[in-house]
């Protein structure tokens, strides 16, 4: 019997979509060419952030998602949800001023913010360098263990009747006229009432199999992992430039310090952004830059050992917004991809919104800014 919903991608976005759709009573099949959480989900820190987004569509999505994650931590659980809060710091007085002004506008959009003058930073993070101009605390920022989050959501969806098939690659779409009515896979045809493209960084490739253009491209990032330590860093701590880098269109290497402790005792250090395709080569230059910035922020880290590094590919779109919603060019196909570095954080809302659309309920948010056809060729007036 055909599933109501076929989700392509067993990463966190596919998992959240499967969970919300199954919970709404849909029959759901998830396929992934690799294992559970084998793509970008398994290569990030697990951020659920409201701090790094200026007011706008993405912040609204982040706020919705942040609330949903808190619910999921209770409803599903088992993925190390940690509402530890984020602390953004600025090195210079002008940077601090800009940060405080950003915080004030975010506060107007519903984000909880606490301005922290230089003299009070140590109360929140005792090991921060004393040479900072000030910061803003975002109690709403949280973290999950992202692979566990995807695996637990999929397990919960399976408990509601969903089927998860890993090692199954989508090779094409089944069509009835224009309409998408399922997928062709390496394991045969799978008809479905609707298909959700939650293929993350590879979402553009899936879209092109359906004959539509969704420009998702990889933006590489490295993370350094330290030896396990007693908790030295309490929050997710990052520099104000991080917000600018996230929104940047520059292809060249950009790094800004992002430092956070985890439940397992390791400290994660990011963040780098490069547009170099899917090149997996270790870049010593990037690792040095990450280390230097982390030590500048937390001098105590100079003697701490790095034991591991990993890299991943963020799925980014030219306007840095995800693609969420039905594709009018291929009825029956929904997209839920292109979340760049915010995929974990935005997954809950994305899954929920797609489930609402599948159930023909009004979505909790206006999806116009995320519509898949927004990148179409500009027609001269």
């Amino acid at each position, binding site marked *: 019997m055909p599933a109501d919903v076929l989700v392509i991608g067993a990463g966190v976005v596919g998992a959240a979509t499967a969970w919300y759709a199954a919970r709404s009573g849909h029959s759901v099949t998830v396929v992934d060419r690799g*294992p559970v959480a084998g793509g970008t989900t398994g290569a990030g820190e697990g951020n659920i952030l409201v701090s790094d987004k200026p007011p706008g569509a993405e912040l609204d999505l982040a706020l919705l998602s942040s609330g949903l994650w808190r619910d999921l931590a209770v409803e599903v659980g088992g993925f190390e949800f940690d509402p530890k809060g984020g602390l953004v710091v600025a090195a210079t007085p002008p940077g601090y001023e800009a940060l405080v002004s950003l915080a004030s506008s975010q506060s107007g959009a519903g984000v909880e913010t606490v301005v922290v003058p230089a003299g009070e930073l140590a109360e929140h993070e005792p090991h921060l360098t004393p040479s900072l101009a000030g910061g803003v605390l975002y109690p709403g920022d949280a973290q999950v263990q992202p692979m566990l989050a995807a695996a637990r959501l999929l*397990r919960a969806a399976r408990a509601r009747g969903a089927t*998860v098939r890993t090692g199954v690659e989508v090779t094409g779409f089944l069509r009835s006229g224009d309409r998408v009515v399922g997928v062709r896979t390496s394991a045969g045809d799978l008809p479905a009432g609707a298909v959700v493209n939650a293929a993350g960084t590879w979402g553009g490739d899936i879209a092109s199999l359906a004959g539509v253009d969704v420009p998702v491209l990889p933006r590489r990032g490295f993370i350094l992992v330290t030896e396990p330590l007693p908790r030295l860093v309490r929050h997710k701590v990052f520099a104000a430039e991080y917000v600018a880098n996230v929104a940047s269109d520059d292809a060249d290497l950009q790094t800004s310090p992002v430092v956070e402790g985890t439940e397992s005792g390791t400290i994660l250090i990011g963040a780098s952004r490069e547009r170099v395709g899917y090149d997996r080569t270790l870049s010593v230059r990037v690792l040095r830059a990450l280390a230097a910035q982390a030590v500048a922020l937390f001098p105590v880290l100079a003697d701490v*050992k*790095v034991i*591991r590094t990993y890299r991943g590919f963020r799925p980014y779109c030219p306007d840095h917004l995800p693609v969420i919603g039905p594709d009018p060019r291929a009825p029956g196909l929904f997209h839920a991809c292109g979340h760049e570095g915010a995929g974990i954080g935005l997954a809950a809302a994305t899954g929920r919104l797609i489930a609402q659309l599948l159930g023909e309920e009004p979505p909790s948010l206006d999806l116009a800014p995320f519509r898949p056809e927004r990148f179409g060729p500009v027609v001269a007036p």
Partner: protein
Amino acid sequence: MATSPYDVAVVGAGPAGLAAAAAALAGGARVALIDAGRQPGGQYWRHRPGDLGAVADLHHDLGAFRRLVAGAAGAVRHFGQHVWTVSGSAADGFTVHAVAGDAETEVPARRLVLAPGAYDRQVPFRGWDLPGVHTAGGAQALLKGHEVLVGRRVVVGGTGPFLLPVAAGLAARGARVAGVYEANRPAGWIRHAGAVLPVAAKLTEGAGYAAALARHRVPFHTRQAIVAAHGGDAVEAVTVARLDHDWRIVAGSERVVECDAVAVGWGFTPQLELPLALGCATRVDADGSLVVEVDERQTTSVPGVHVAGEACGVGGAALAVAEGSIAGVAAAGVTSAPASLRRRRRALRRFAAAMHAVHPVRAGWQSWLADDTLVCRCEEVSAGEVRTALDELGATDVRTAKLLSRAGMGWCQGRVCGYATACLTASCTGTAPDLRGVSERPIAAPISLGTLAGDPGHIGQQ
């Protein structure tokens, strides 16, 4: 980057690395020799600095060692240096990045010979995390490197010919070896006589250890294994048991043997961090180890990168020397190694294959584990937790099992538990163990953030 790179950088100064450095120097190359140890020799010829004589009786073929050290004397030594990564390509030149304490060194070279060696392959068993339970190689290293006995009454177990010199060494220095428990039946050798006879020295070596064990009245048991260790603060006894063909415990055969130390080894795991960081192609060898694929000239799939010794197939020091010599010749740009050397390599590889054939590790060891037996000691992940990642959380490969259970995510980065986690995964999914998924470690040795951040001192030419 220093402007004048070495012709050849050799990483590892054990049997393979020393031979490679000596051969490359003989071929006219300028050579850098890099090793984590303070003196040459690697694990095989491990000794206290400047004091080889004190442990000469524990060593084999010291004449070869002295010849190789003399041959490699012209290499610029970077000893006490832990290589944390290698980067570059044949076109742009390679850089070996090494760290010693807080100081980082970058060694530039046109070609690389990687001879990283191997360490004990471990399988978990109940109580293996008790103090006093050692790897066979660890017990041997303490003896050769520090003249320290791991205990007064020692039980040796596992599989493979390496158990013999370990037990013989312990007995020679005064430990009571309560028994050697070899899980296979090495009598299977007879079927491989064709592979063994051409390397008769190996037979003499084995016979020598057997005689030493007999002299010290060390009982040698086959098809038996140490399946559990017991004790409070430290090991006080082990349970040994008879095994069936698949290594399941024969019911009722368990026996308790008192001891104050245990040495176990299940063959060896090649150290592949550096070849994998460079993207070298791998294969699975006859002993189930992931090894680097090399051609006749010990060249990997990556141009300019040669690998020699255990990293391209576990086979012992004599084979490592032959491979190292051939790799050194190739890296120096000399057209080809002497035919006699290639014949010797072929004979020793056949011998190694025969060894692997009679000393397999069978999947039945997994049935010895209780659900709460630790698989990953660093992160304290039990066999039950690994199985939960597979059965409940949907992991279908070892990388996912690792990331969902945290097995292999701690200090050792899976060096100890990677093999076991891969085997548990394979048993659950009905596939062959995927060791590649637990062997990639882009940071090959821990490095402090401060050192990583700083500008390294560059090495000029001498």
